[in-house]
């Protein structure tokens, strides 16, 4: 019997719209399962990821808006009071659309939610407007309404119930959205607690790893690390007192250059910057870049050697192309290896003509010079 071809649609962030946030004015970009985001310094690449972090923290985690919306995040040369954010997410058998509009009120000014809405396949499942929340059930019926503090996200306070599975799915996706920019100087090896998600710079890496070790096995992760980090044997958590645990990494060395090897344990902080970043990046690859997940990598190639970039990137691309459980990876990079691998097929180019608003377009070779993507960028020939 012939196998039946199955198409499992991936979960993806397919569109971002932003108005009046830093250099992003009436800005929209469409995204694919894997996307390389390119552009010169100041083009708005990291701003795009900052917005995703902001929406996750505010609308899923319930962080306060103060200092993160409006104020200095408004586009400087505009005199517009509202900031608008929209996300389109394909998943759970339909298309989610989320829209958040913020302005400010009071003296001193505080950010206020003008409207916060989520729809599923063009039907409303959540609305918070003028201080009033409307909750819809899975049959899109407006069942509950109640007043709410307009200085907070009402979506962040919604709990999972049997009749709001559609909204709950979206909130879970948003809460898991991950932006990663590994900074080895801030990666701590001491776990004082367990956390479900790493922060952007992986500074709480040990806390996250402690959580992961409770939840999952790490055979594949350790195997990968032993292949990419010379001498890496294994990694474990050791009791460090006061309920804290500490990451210990066992490395093996040749004795006096001969074939005999001996092992020694090191603290995470004793490893090189590049080794720590690899440990972080492969952890994200194994434990975060999974089905239904969107992971944004902001210059992941910093600190790691040229030969280490390609295998990691290949694994990331494999994950995004997985038939069974595809994930989404958005990558900001200036690295030639990434540019040459992804720019022509998956490159989105951001630029700011005249230093004003950010524009976006697919990367290409406008003069058909036949040069590599990295060479085009080095010459500035991609922007014409």
């Amino acid at each position, binding site marked *: 019997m012939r196998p039946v071809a199955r198409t499992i649609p991936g979960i993806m962030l397919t569109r971002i719209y932003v108005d009046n946030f830093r250099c992003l004015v009436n800005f929209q970009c469409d995204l694919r399962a894997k996307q390389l985001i390119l552009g010169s310094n100041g083009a708005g690449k990291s701003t795009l990821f900052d917005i995703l972090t902001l929406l996750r923290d505010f609308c899923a985690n319930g962080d306060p808006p103060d200092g993160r919306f409006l104020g200095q995040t408004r586009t400087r040369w505009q005199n517009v009071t509202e900031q608008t954010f929209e996300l389109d997410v394909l998943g759970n058998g339909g298309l989610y659309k989320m829209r958040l509009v913020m302005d400010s009120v009071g003296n001193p000014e505080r950010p206020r939610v003008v409207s916060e809405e989520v729809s599923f396949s063009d039907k409303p499942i959540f609305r918070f407007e003028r201080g009033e929340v409307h909750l819809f059930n899975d049959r899109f019926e407006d069942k509950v309404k109640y007043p709410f503090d307009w200085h907070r996200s009402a979506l962040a306070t919604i709990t999972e119930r049997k009749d709001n599975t559609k909204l709950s799915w979206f909130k879970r996706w948003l809460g898991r959205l991950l932006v990663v920019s590994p900074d080895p100087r801030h990666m701590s090896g001491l776990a004082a607690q367990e956390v479900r998600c790493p922060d952007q710079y992986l500074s709480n890496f040990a806390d996250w790893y402690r959580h992961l070790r409770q939840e999952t096995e790490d055979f594949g992760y350790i195997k990968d690390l032993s292949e990419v980090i010379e001498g890496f044997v294994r990694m474990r958590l050791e009791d460090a007192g006061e309920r804290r645990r500490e990451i210990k990494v066992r490395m093996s060395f040749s004795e006096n250059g001969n074939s005999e090897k001996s092992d020694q344990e090191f603290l995470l902080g004793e490893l090189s910057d590049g080794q720590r970043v690899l440990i972080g990046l492969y952890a994200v690859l194994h434990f975060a870049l999974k089905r239904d997940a969107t992971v944004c990598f902001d210059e992941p190639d910093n600190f790691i050697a040229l030969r280490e970039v390609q295998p990691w990137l290949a694994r990331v691309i494999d994950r995004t192309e997985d038939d069974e459980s595809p994930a989404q990876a958005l990558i900001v990079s200036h690295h030639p290896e990434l540019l040459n691998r992804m720019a022509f097929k998956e490159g989105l180019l951001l630029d700011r003509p005249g230093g004003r608003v950010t524009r976006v377009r697919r990367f290409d070779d406008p*003069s058909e010079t036949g*040069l590599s993507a990295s060479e085009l960028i080095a*010459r500035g020939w991609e922007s*014409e």
Partner: protein
Amino acid sequence: MSDRVSMTVLLCEDDPQEQLVRSYLTRCGQSTQPPMFRTRNASREVHGGNVDRVINEFPKELLACRRRHSVRANTRLIVVADADNHSPAQRKQHFQKDSQGNEQMLGGDPVMLLIPKRHVEAWIRAALGTMVNEDGDYKNPEPTRSEIRQAADQIYEWARDNAEPGPTCPESLRAALPEWRKIC
């Protein structure tokens, strides 16, 4: 399209060649910084076989410059390659004809070919006032940055319209002065 050159691509073998051309461009008042200037220096891309790298990369660079020149902005390609044990004319043929012997350069191509007889250090010494034998080896001692700058200034003077090259100007440099002049 304006006649003003919006980008210069330099394809050369090594650092002395690159420094001489950069110094010459600076003397002409032209930028040697991005986005106006881009170097492909073979010694930084391959280990050994620099001149082969320049010859092999030339068709790709020629095509890129030609296409961009025709549709976008004035772009030119400066190529420096030592003739080594060939004559400068023979080396020029390596660029003018492709591997099948067909002409690959067109009349209007924005390309400047600079071909020292043995190596560019002989041009540098000659421009500094030394009477050189073009078959001789002038790589040691290596010319300093300031010597290369002085040599570029002298080549600039020799390449000007109505200028008479000095008595130390060797034949291959004399033959290349029209190409140097086109750069300014």
